[in-house]
């Protein structure tokens, strides 16, 4: 029973990983790529790790998988945030479809 549910979690995680990488290919500029990949790849890898936890139960390996899940879900948004800000401040322009740019108006005015 546990192994079946674990397989389902692993399959869902694989699918979301793939959608994140596809978004990395398809979206037009850096900020949209960060949007797609930071959400989907994080949830996909967390799904795989939770599936591993369901396989192993409360053994040391399963608890290590839970700790790894917690670590990823804390640090992935931080690195996405840092990369988005770095891209803005290093002067990468948003793409043509952009409709509003409040951050650029506020921060890059003096340059």
């Amino acid at each position: 029973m546990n192994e079946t549910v674990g397989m389902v979690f692993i399959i869902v995680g694989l699918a979301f990983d793939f959608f994140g990488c596809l978004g990395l290919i398809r979206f037009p500029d850096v900020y949209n790529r960060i949007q797609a990949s930071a959400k989907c790849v994080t949830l996909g890898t967390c799904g795989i790790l939770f599936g591993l936890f369901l396989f192993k139960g409360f053994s040391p390996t399963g608890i290590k998988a839970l700790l790894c899940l917690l670590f990823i879900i804390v640090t992935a948004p931080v690195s996405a945030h840092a990369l988005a800000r770095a891209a803005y401040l290093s002067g990468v322009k948003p793409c043509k479809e952009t409709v509003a740019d409040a951050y650029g108006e506020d921060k890059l005015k003096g340059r």
Partner: protein
Amino acid sequence: MILNFISFILWFSIWSALRRPINTQDIILGVLVSGFVTFMTADLSRSLDDKKSSKKRSLFGILTKAVYLSYYVVIFLWECIKANIDVAFRVLHPSLPIRPGTIKIKTALKSDIGLTFLANSLTLTPGNTTIDVDKAAGVLYVHRLVIKDGGSGAIPVAVKFEKILKKVFD
């Protein structure tokens, strides 16, 4: 002090879960290691404590905060799954239905850790990525995937998160 003790119990329980057939040597080493980790993370647990508002620092207050925090985790996981399905739909759609842009939203949160929680959980929920935080003005700059009306107005998810986080961290 009581928060330091709770974090010591937490680290020691993680240690004893990783060392499954536990003996005396493991217990002594675990007390040393989790004491060291508690010492290193003391300022984090101090920032969780409320210094300015001298209301209650009792065990009951901490338990209420823990209940609100677990409620927040449940809400956050549900929003996270919805966000992922939404982004997957937009990635797979042939005509790529996005209207991106950055907007700024106001927050009433003051503490560092509350702002960090809000920014991180906004990054993982539908179509938002926090770019920068201006703590003095109380403003978050958010990149959105779909902007309905000219870039103004609040995000409903942010309002919902903020209401719970204000009870936990302020």
